[in-house]
Every structure is written in structure tokens, then in C-alpha cells.
């Protein structure tokens, strides 16, 4: 008996419906077309949160379903942002430079225009030459391709090296963390040609859309982020359901047994690692034009650990859990650190949340790990009221295997 995709993934339908309602609601309340209750800056925050949700579900697939605790997916996110940022910066600077050169008595040659753009972009790092990395920066299609291909290729090469030498568990986490550190140090160097620690800036100004207000452009990006999240959710729901999904969950719980059953474990892992990296790249490419600036600090190892934290808080091994985790933590974080949370006066000491939010986050994170292994998403199990599975011990012997307490059949 073959069930339809929706029947196998009832949560997908619910999720898509919720996302659609949310998008319509935000549109109706937005500044540019609706009631104007949601400010443009908050709209941007919401759009960015959707992008973070997308990278979080990618992380959930690679960790929650396949058991690979990758501490490098935020680096792929950042690479996607850099790839689109290079085009944004080039095209926008070109517009500015061409306008300013028009006042010269002689019309400019193409070489002069390129030189002027180079001086404008790389002046901050004391250079004016275009580095080799920027070879395709004038072409939007090629840079869009880079958004997907560069993280994909990097993940493919790195994953192939790591999986074929059977680096697993904690060692793989440390190795991916080392990769992230290397990448962020590489981006920090002025010699790399990505403007060192200045990063790329002014990304919120989209070339060709100068006459549109930020409110309109932000709404478009919000829609694009929502669409990307919806498509990413469908893609990953498809990937983790069916036979393929069973195999990768089996790899998570007992890799050796899957290998003995004749599956090419490395191929499965490599596929999951690479495709999630590509989706992370896309999420980054949608995120940074809304953030307006990207610099190497964004891809520091700690960002990738936070990503794992969101997934764990939301509940790993369920896609909507990742979305909940990312939304709750990032929105709460901007609420607390933005200074809108009321301070608590204890009489002898005043708790300012800008100082204490990280303490609260860390503590709640430890508590979730210890006492709520299913995360916030696990609360939904109470609604569905499925019978508890009678089983002894964890799902498998592997380090990333589901714990006994996490167990809940889909």
C-alpha cells in the first residue's frame, strides 16, 4: 500500500498552512501594502528569521536525521551570503561610479570604469585591483550559481575526505569546527580579497531597484524567504520520508549495521551533507541582503554551534522542531538584546537583560538537554497522542543515535 506524500507527512501540510497564514498576516500588516503596524525593520527581522529557519531545518536533516553533528553549516550560510554580496556590491558600485565618471570631459573606457570600481570597493583594505575571487562578480546568474555551487563543492570535498576515512561522532564535529575556523580566518585576511574584517556592506541597496522604497524591497525579500522556506521544507520532508529517510535514520542510530546490510553509508551521508550545505547557501543569500552587511565574524565557529543549539531546543529529528527552535531563540534573542525586555529590579541588583540574556539562554539550553530531550517540538506529541513505543535503551549504539527519551514514531 503506497501512501501519498502528504499522508506520510501530515506535519508538512500543517506547517505550510501555518507559514501561508503567517505570510499573509504579515503582508496585511506591513508598511508598504497594508496597515503599517509592522515596521520595516521588524519586517526585516521576520524575513531574516525565516532564512534562519531554513538553515535550521537543513541542520536538522544533517544532525537530527543523519546523526552528523556538523559545526560548519553556518559557514556554508555565510558563503552563500558572500556570493550574493559580491554581485550586489559590484553592481551597485558600478552604478555609482558610472554616474560620477560622467562629469569627466572624456567618456570613460571600460578599463577606467573597472579600475574606479576596484578603487571604490577595495580602498578600505588599501588595494584597488580586483582579486581573482571576483572574476564573476559582474554577472548575477554566475554569482547565483556560486551561492549553490561553492557551498556544495566545499561540502562535497570536505565530506568525501571525512566520511571515507570514517571520521564520525565527536571527531567529525571537531573537524567541521576546524574547517569553519579555517574558513573564517581565511576570510579575515585582507589578502583574500573579500575586504578582510570590513566584510561586504550596503547589501540592502539592490541594484536596479533604487527607486523602490526599503519597505517594498523588504516585503519582497520576506516573500522570497517564505517561499524558500516552504520549498526547503517540502524538499527535506521528501528527503527524510520514504526509503531514503529510513536509511539515513538507520545510519544515525547504527551505522555499522547499515553498512553490513550492503548500503553505501558514505554516499548517503555525502548526499545529505552536500544538499544541506547548498540549502544553507541559499538561506544565506536571502538573509544577508536583508541584514545589509556581512563580515567574517558571521561565520566564526560559534555561529554554527548556535545553529545546533536552535535545533536542539526546538527538538531534533523533526523538521518543524528546527523551525520552532530557530524562531523562538532568534526572536527572543533580538527582543532581549534589543533592550525591549523590561529590566528586573531585585532591590540590591538590577537585572539588565542585555547583560543576562546569554546567561539565561545558556542555562535554559543545559536544562533542555538534560530534562527535555525532545525539545519544544516534543510538546506536539501530546496533541497527537500516539501510544508510547515499548522499547529498552537507546535507538542504536552510535554517538548520534536517538536517546530512549527522544523516541517518538513519526
Amino acid at each position, binding site marked *: 500500500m503506497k501512501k501519498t506524500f502528504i499522508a506520510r507527512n501530515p506535519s508538512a501540510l500543517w506547517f505550510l498552512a501555518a507559514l501561508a497564514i503567517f505570510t499573509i498576516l504579515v503582508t496585511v500588516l506591513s508598511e508598504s501594502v497594508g496597515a503599517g503596524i509592522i515596521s520595516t525593520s521588524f519586517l526585516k527581522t521576520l524575513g531574516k528569521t525565516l532564512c534562519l529557519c531554513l538553515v535550521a531545518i537543513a541542520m536538522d536533516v544533517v544532525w537530527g536525521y543523519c546523526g552528523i*553533528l556538523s559545526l560548519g553549516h553556518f559557514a556554508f550560510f555565510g558563503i552563500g551570503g558572500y556570493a550574493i554580496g559580491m554581485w550586489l556590491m559590484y553592481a551597485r558600485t558600478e552604478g555609482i561610479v558610472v554616474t560620477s565618471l560622467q562629469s569627466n*570631459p*572624456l*567618456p*570613460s*573606457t*571600460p*578599463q577606467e570604469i573597472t579600475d574606479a570600481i576596484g578603487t571604490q570597493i577595495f580602498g578600505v583594505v588599501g588595494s584597488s585591483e580586483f582579486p581573482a575571487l571576483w572574476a564573476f562578480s559582474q554577472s548575477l546568474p554566475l554569482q547565483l550559481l556560486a551561492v549553490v555551487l561553492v557551498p556544495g563543492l566545499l561540502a562535497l570535498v*570536505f565530506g568525501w*575526505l*571525512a566520511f571515507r*576515512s*570514517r*571520521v564520525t*561522532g*565527536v*571527531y567529525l*564535529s*571537531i*573537524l567541521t*569546527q*576546524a*574547517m569553519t*575556523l*579555517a574558513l573564517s*580566518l*581565511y576570510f*579575515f*585576511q585582507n*589578502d583574500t580579497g573579500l575586504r578582510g574584517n570590513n566584510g561586504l556592506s550596503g547589501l540592502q541597496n539592490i541594484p536596479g531597484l533604487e527607486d523602490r522604497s526599503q519597505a517594498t524591497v523588504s516585503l519582497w525579500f520576506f516573500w522570497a524567504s517564505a517561499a524558500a522556506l516552504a520549498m526547503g521544507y517540502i524538499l527535506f520532508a521528501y528527503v527524510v520520508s520514504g526509503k531514503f529517510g529510513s536509511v539515513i535514520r538507520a545510519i544515525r542510530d547504527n551505522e555499522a549495521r547499515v553498512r553490513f546490510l550492503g548500503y553505501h553509508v558514505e554516499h548517503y551521508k555525502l548526499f545529505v551533507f552536500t544538499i544541506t550545505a547548498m540549502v544553507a547557501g541559499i538561506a544565506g543569500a536571502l538573509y544577508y541582503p536583508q541584514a545589509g552587511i556581512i563580515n567574517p565574524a558571521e561565520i566564526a*565557529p*560559534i555561529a554554527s*554551534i548556535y545553529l*545546533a*543549539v536552535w535545533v*536542539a531546543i526546538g527538538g531534533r529529528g523533526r523538521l518543524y522542531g528546527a523551525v520552532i527552535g530557530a524562531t523562538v531563540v532568534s526572536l527572543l534573542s533580538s527582543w532581549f538584546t534589543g533592550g525591549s525586555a523590561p529590566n528586573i529590579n531585585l532591590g540590591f541588583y538590577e537585572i539588565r537583560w542585555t*547583560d*543576562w540574556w*546569554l*546567561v539565561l*539562554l*545558556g*542555562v*535554559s*539550553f*543545559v536544562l533542555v*538537554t*538534560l530534562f527535555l*530531550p525532545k525539545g519544544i517540538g516534543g510538546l506536539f506529541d501530546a496533541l497527537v497522542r500516539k501510544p508510547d513505543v515499548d522499547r529498552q535503551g537507546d535507538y542504536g549504539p552510535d*554517538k*548520534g543515535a536517538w*536517546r530512549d527519551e527522544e523516541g517518538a514514531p513519526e
Partner: protein
Amino acid sequence: MAQTLQDILQENAEAIAKPSRRTVDKVISALADAPVDGIPTFLEDWRDKAIWQRETDGLFFSAVKNGDGLILTDLDSGEETTVADDDGFNQSKPNAGVRRVISSALVQFLLSDPDITRRQAALDAIGRAPSADQLAPLRDSIDGEPEADILARKQQLERQLTAQFDEDPDARIAAIKDLSGNVSVEARGVISQILATRAFVAAKIPENANVAKVLDVGEDLSAQEAYAQLIAAGLAPASVTPDDVKASLIANITDGRVAGFDVATLDTDNARIAAYDALVAAGDAPPFIPEADRTAAIGAHTFYLAYIEPNPEVTAAAEDADKAIGTMLAGGQAIDLTLDALSLASIYFLAAIGLAITFGVMGVINMAHGEFIMMGAYTGYVVQQFVPDYTLSILIALPLAFAVTFAGGVALERLVIRHLYHRPLETLLATFGISIVLQQLAKNIFGTQARPLTSPDWLAGAWVLNDVVQISYIRIAIFVLALLFLGLILFILKRTRLGLEVRAVTQNPGMAASMGINPDKINMMTFGLGSGIAGIAGVAIGLYAKVTSEMGSDYIVQSFMTVVVGGVGNVWGTLAGASLIGFTQKGIEWFNPSNTLAAQTYMILFVILFIQFRPKGIVALKGRAAGD
């Protein structure tokens, strides 16, 4: 009555009051022959225009301005008198040339001055700015030098001055030979001064030129540079650059047209050159020099570097000395690099040694390990607030840091890690939560700015072998501390009851428990020990780096890599890992010294590749101890 300084000055009164290049030498030699005190002071004052003559009796005084008046100092007795008005006094104003003569004469007096510090200062002055006229007085002063140190310094400077300035080429060559193999900055400066070259261009190299190198156009210098040299030497007409083309075009725009071309069409290089050619044809601009003409002009001339020093034998000897120095220098730099790498390795080892126990031996991923290092460093800082004596405060801080972080480690193990054994990925995330809590707490308590942890005076400074090889004492201390820890931990693990039980529990907790060992207690103690050692490492690291709330996260990734590369479960492995990473990083830095970020990047890439070939690390455990 003995002759005084004033008497001698009076004999030369005219020459002193109105000094000139002609007369100054006579004054100097008169002073040199006179057996009186105070000559150096007088010369200094004279050079600094602080000698005044009283018009009434012609006596000279050392004087400083005091409002409108003067404070006079008698040159012989040192007696001070103040006059309200400088009328009636004339200042002696030697010009720049005279002052130079006075200065070099001064060196000669100072070199035999009875005061050691003044002799020292004179030698330093020579070292800073050597010149030919210092040679003779320096040689004269060597014989009477009683102080061994200063004598050695004088001889050294004498060799250097001889190599540079002696009139006899053989003496110079001999001195240069003496300098070969000397890596001091001064000696290298002397040799490179002798070997200084200047670029020349000529149709044929003149007979008398002391040629250092004939330059190959295209290899040693670009065709453009070569042509620029030809222009500078007046051997070729100036060429027209693209900027010149542009300027000429702009200058000749009339009604939107240049030489018949529409300005709007001039947006390519070819169009601009066509328009410029039209300008040339009309005689409005200097002509282009075609590429072929330029190549021919370059081909017809020889470009070469010639030594400024005319004597080829001297330069040949200097070249030999330079080579010898180069070899010595490379050796010295290699030693220096090795010392650097060694100290980097010991820092990595110190940072990672606690992890070698908690992660390596127990298999617990503790992301808060870096924060234990930070806690140790802050403990040191707090102790220094209460105990002002730096030596004593360090001695108190070391055990106190151990106690604080030991307690922290035990608490962490009891409250969190105990529940997550065999769940390393969850441990990783939970301890990460602890790590951000500790970091933020440190920030809330101590603020975001870096706090100083001052090392005692006896650890300041450096052990200087020569100008190339030197290492600071603090790094030596860290190295010694690392060795001490290695010994201590090996002793605890291999020679004590606790170590035996630790090894038993980590290999097989069930079996250990049935042999009467309490695994809970052992795990607690082991984790506490690892954390406590991180605390002590924190004090050591805080001494040479700054203490901030983020200092731990700087070391955490490197520390994990150190343990993984070295091989888990083995203290020797951590040592090997730290050495490999430290030496690799310094080795990469050697190729590109200006870019330490690049060195770190490539070092991490190297580690990632290394893991491919030795997934179990350098010192891999075998058999049952390996665990799988």
C-alpha cells in the same frame, strides 16, 4: 700657578668668540694638549651655543638664558652667578660646520673621560652615527682603557670604522674579514653600507666602474623601468603615457570635438589613440615613441648596478663577508624559529593538557574547558588586587586557581556531565551552554576590557643570545611549566592509586566497579583534576596574553585539535600533537612572516588533511585500550 681652562680660552679668545671653520681646529688642538679638566663640558656648551663672553673683561662663561638675564657658570670653579640683563655679554654662535668639528672633537675627549657612563655614551653615539673622523680618536683611546667591557666595545667599533673608513685598503679588507660571521645589526649595517650600489645605464660599461651586477632587462627590471632609466639619464626621449594622451585630448577639446573626432566616441583606448595620432599629425602634441624604437633604445644600452665604493678588492671582501653573515644569519633564524615554535607548542600543550585528561582519557567533550582557563586567569587577576607583591601573588594564584577550577569542574561533572556519559554530542552542546554562561558572567563581573595579569620582575625581559636569537623569560617559564605538568600528570596516571583507578574506570567502568572502585567518585576526581590543570594553565597564559572573558574561546578549537591530532587517550599524544601544531604553524609563518592569520588557516587545513591519513592521531592506542 697651574694653567686653567679659562687661561687657554683667553689665549684663543678671538677664535672662540667668533668661531669659523678656519680657526676651530687650532682651538681644538690647543685644548687637546692642555692638561686641564672640564674640556668636554666646555665643548658641549660651545656646540650648544651656551658659551657667552663678558665684554668688560673678555672672560668666557657657560650660561643659560633666564628671562632677559643670564645664569652664568664659571668654567673652572662651577660657581653660579645670576645677572639681570644680557647686555654686555656676547653669545658665541658656531655655525653648523663648526659644530660638526666640535662634536667629533668632543667624542675624542669623551672617549677618555674618567666617567664610565660618559665613555659609554660616546661609544653609543659612534655606534649610532659612525663617521670617518671618529676613527683616529677611537684608536687613540683604546690603549688607556681600563674597563674590560668598554675596551671590547671600543675594539669592536674600531673594526667597524676601519672596515668602512680606513684609507688603507688592506686594513679595510682585514677588518672586513674580522666582521664576517658577525650577525649583530651594526656589523650587518657596515657591510651593507660598503656594498651599497647605484643603478647606472650606459652604452658601454666604463673601465673604472666597480660593477656589482649587470642587469637583464625583462628579468631584473621591466622594460618600462629600463626605459624610465634611459629617460632619466637623458639617453632617450620621453615617452607618452596614457595619462598624457588623456590630458592632451582634454586640452584640445573644442565644441565637443578633438582633432575631428566626436568626444562621445572616445570611450575605448583605440579610439583615443587614433584621435591622439591626429593631434600629433596636426602638430598639437609630442609624438608617440613606437614600441620598436623603445626596444631598440633599451637594447643599445647596458643597465648595471655599480658599487659606490670604488675599490673592487674591498667590495669583493665585503661580498664574502656578506655571504658568511648570511649563512650565520640563516642558522640564527632557524634557531630563533625553533625556540618560537617550542614556546608556541608549550602554550598549546598547556592549554590542551587538561583536555587530554577530560577528553582524551575520559572521553568527555567539554566545550567549557576554555572558560576554565579563563577562570584561572581571572583568579590570578583577583589575587593581584589583594596581594601587591607580584612574586607572592603568583605563588598564591597557582594553587588557588587550581582549587577554584577543580571545584568548578566537580560541580559541572556532578550537575551536568554525569547524566550525559556516552552521549558525547549532547555533552558537547550542554557544556557549550555552560561556556556561554561562564563567559557572560565574567563579562558582567569584570567588564569587557582586558585585565592585566602582571608577571614578577624576574620574569620580565628576555634572554638575549645575539641580535637574532632571543627568547623572553616568560616563554621559558611557560616551557618549564609545560614540562612540569607533563611529568606531574604522567606520574599521577602511571604511578599513583588514583591514576590506576582512573585508567581502570575509563577502560571498563563495570569491571572496575566490581573490583571495588567507585566509578562515580573517580570520574568526579578525574574531571576535577583536568579542570584544575586548565585553571593553572590559565594563570600561565594570562601572564603573557591579556585576560579577557573571551580568552578561553581563543584556545578551545586549537586545544581539541591538539588532542585529536596527538591521539586520544594518551598524554604523550597531546605532547606530540602540540609539538606538531606549534612547529607546523611557525614553519608556515616562516614562508610568509607578515601574515599569521594565513599561517593559522593553513595549519588547520594541514590538520584536517593529517586526520585523513592518521584518523587515530599520532600516538594511536592499540588493542583493548583503544576501545573499539
